[in-house]
């Protein structure tokens, strides 16, 4: 008999009904909601006279266009009238429909994918959805988690289910030991570079192998976060002792006998030996360098000691045209060493890299110097709790002394919906997940890197090979 995969197990455990044509009704255990993709869903409920089926299974927080400065004045002090209206609308909808809401001035407020795990709202073996593609982050806990559109947000609110077609199984084995300064972010970028931004389309990824087991929960979240950039809806890491330790005693995690029962079940959540995957690749972490993107797609990765690629060497016409377009947009010429590329801005934050471990890694570099005069650098913690922890450890002082801006939690310049954005032509070393045209501001140029590479670039004013630096611990 062939075994089943982790994805198959979670899927089977959530099947409410299966139709002959391959569409299934899947039960949804947890639903995260934010201000941008929910107003039209609540409006839809109201118009149809429907109410949420299980309001306590939904948790809401404003993150996408919340300001990262001037938080003291609360909602009233938000300058942008549209942002203000959207956050106000979320508050009112939560109050009207009885949904738990982490208010703007609450220490627990933060980026939805940082706050959910912190609260223990995210647990292994659950189905978790949110109107945001980076919901894949929660797969780090062995939960089936993915982004949905606004119509589906409304569907989940009304029915606590989702109509889904089953995806295929794709295992990514990352073997070997990652060298020093090769982080979860580099592993994620390496995978996307390898399989391409559509390589995971139609699949759920399972990350396995010793390099994955060696990652902390923060690292696993960084990795699963970027599954969507490889085209996959979801990424999974089988839960283990690190997962349970992270979750124990979190506010919404089970307690006492419930905890024991849950852990016993969670321990069964792994792919069986002999489980068949539709696709499988193996990457050796020991071979990986720190990476940086050069183009406008997350698959455009290159080693930090590499050079800007030459489009004329690309045979495929579509790829060549895309590369030429990307280099033109990025203002880069073929053959330039990446380490000679000067930057104007640094953004350390986003649901990819704004957790305490990310800030510690960046601070260890920040401690060694001062932000270059030509660079404007900012650090945006992922949540109020991350910010508080960092301040207890004195990381804020290190950043401020080195010349970084220390901000309030939110999505900030990851998508530049609030005031934090690049000016046209500005070049940014960013720890976020998307380097699309205009993502961080119209005409802005984004290079994706790990937190320590971003901090090192801030000090040098250009990309540097982090392996050449000596960080203070």
């Amino acid at each position, binding site marked *: 008999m062939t075994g089943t995969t982790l994805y198959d197990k979670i899927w089977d455990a959530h099947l*409410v*009904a299966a*139709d002959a*044509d*391959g*569409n299934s*009704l899947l*039960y949804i*255990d947890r639903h995260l909601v934010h201000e*941008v*993709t929910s*107003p*039209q869903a609540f409006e839809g409920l109201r118009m*149809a006279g429907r109410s949420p*089926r*299980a309001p306590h299974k939904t948790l809401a927080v404003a993150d*996408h*266009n919340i300001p990262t400065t001037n938080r003291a004045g609360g909602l009233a002090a938000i300058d*942008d009238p*549209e*942002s203000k*209206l959207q956050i106000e609308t979320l508050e009112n909808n939560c109050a009207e429909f009885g949904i738990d809401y982490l208010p703007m001035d609450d220490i627990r407020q933060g980026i939805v994918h940082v706050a959910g795990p912190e609260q223990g709202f995210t*647990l292994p073996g*659950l189905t978790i959805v949110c*109107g*945001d*593609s980076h919901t894949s982050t929660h797969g780090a806990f062995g939960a089936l988690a993915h*982004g*949905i*559109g*606004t*119509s*589906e947000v*409304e*569907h989940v609110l*009304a*029915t606590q*289910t989702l109509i889904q077609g089953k995806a295929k199984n794709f295992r990514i084995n990352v073997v070997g030991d990652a060298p020093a300064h090769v982080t979860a972010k580099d592993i994620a970028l390496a995978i996307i570079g390898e399989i391409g*931004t*559509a390589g995971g*389309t*139609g699949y759920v990824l399972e990350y396995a192998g010793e390099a994955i087991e060696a990652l902390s929960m923060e690292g696993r979240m960084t990795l699963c976060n970027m599954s969507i950039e490889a*085209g996959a*809806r979801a990424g999974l890491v089988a839960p283990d002792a690190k997962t349970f330790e992270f979750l124990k005693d979190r506010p919404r*995690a*089970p307690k006492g006998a*419930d*905890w024991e*029962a*849950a852990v016993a*079940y969670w321990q069964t959540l792994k792919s069986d030996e002999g489980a068949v995957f539709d696709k499988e690749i193996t990457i050796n972490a020991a071979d990986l360098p720190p990476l940086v993107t050069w183009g406008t797609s997350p698959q455009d990765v290159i080693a930090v000691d590499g050079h800007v690629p030459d489009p004329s060497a690309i045979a495929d016409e*579509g790829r060549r045209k895309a590369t030429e*377009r990307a280099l033109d947009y990025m203002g880069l010429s073929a053959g330039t060493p990446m380490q000679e590329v000067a930057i104007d801005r640094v953004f350390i934050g986003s649901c990819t890299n704004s957790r305490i471990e990310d800030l510690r890694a960046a601070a260890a570099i920040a401690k060694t110097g001062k932000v270059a005069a030509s660079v404007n650098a900012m650090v945006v913690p992922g949540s109020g709790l991350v910010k508080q922890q960092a301040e207890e450890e004195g990381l804020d002082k290190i950043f401020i002394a080195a010349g970084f801006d220390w901000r309030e939690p939110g999505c900030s310049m990851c998508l*530049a*919906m609030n005031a934090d954005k690049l000016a*046209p032509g500005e070049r940014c070393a960013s720890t976020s997940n998307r380097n*699309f*045209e*205009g993502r961080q501001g*119209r005409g802005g140029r984004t290079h994706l890197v790990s937190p320590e590479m971003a901090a090192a670039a801030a000090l040098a004013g250009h990309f540097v090979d982090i392996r050449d630096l000596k960080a203070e611990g």
Partner: protein
Amino acid sequence: MEKFDKLTGIAAPLDIINVDTDMIIPKQFLKTIQRSGLGKNLFDEMRYTPEGDEIADFVLNQPAYRAAQILVAGDNFGCGSSREHAPWALLDFGISCVIAPSFADIFYNNCFKNGILPIVLPQEDVDKLMDDSKRGANATVSIDLESQTIKGPDGGEISFEVDAFRKQCLLEGLDDIGLTLQKAAAIDDYEARLDAQAWR
């Protein structure tokens, strides 16, 4: 939801791969709390200068394509963020069918929920339609969902695949939530079984 059965209209060529949802509708337009009104900002940063003037050579600004109802595009269309504002913007502009060699998953799903038909075709068929659509206003393409066929301007026919359930929903303009609520008893049963796992 509007029904989709037949459509005859101008096809606009957007010969770019990896068209992402940030390109389709940039985030500064996501602050709306409504579904309508996004058409004027469809492809905003490719369509207008920072001063707000039209960029003449962008396809939807060319006289032949201003009333396009079909879009022909490259691989991996709709990648990136899950924002449903992307299909809303297409629809508000008047585009209710997108043809490409492949689509990103979430965008593909979102289309069906808004009365847009996304059609996946082999690269050579897309190339052919791309060439046809470059002929401008003479490039009318007819789509018949019932028979799953596309008729090009020169009369050539291409057939396409679509999931039977989604096809039915589009043809009848059915709302998913209504359909699911018909299965409320199955959801009740499932929830009753959940009691065994209190932590869920």
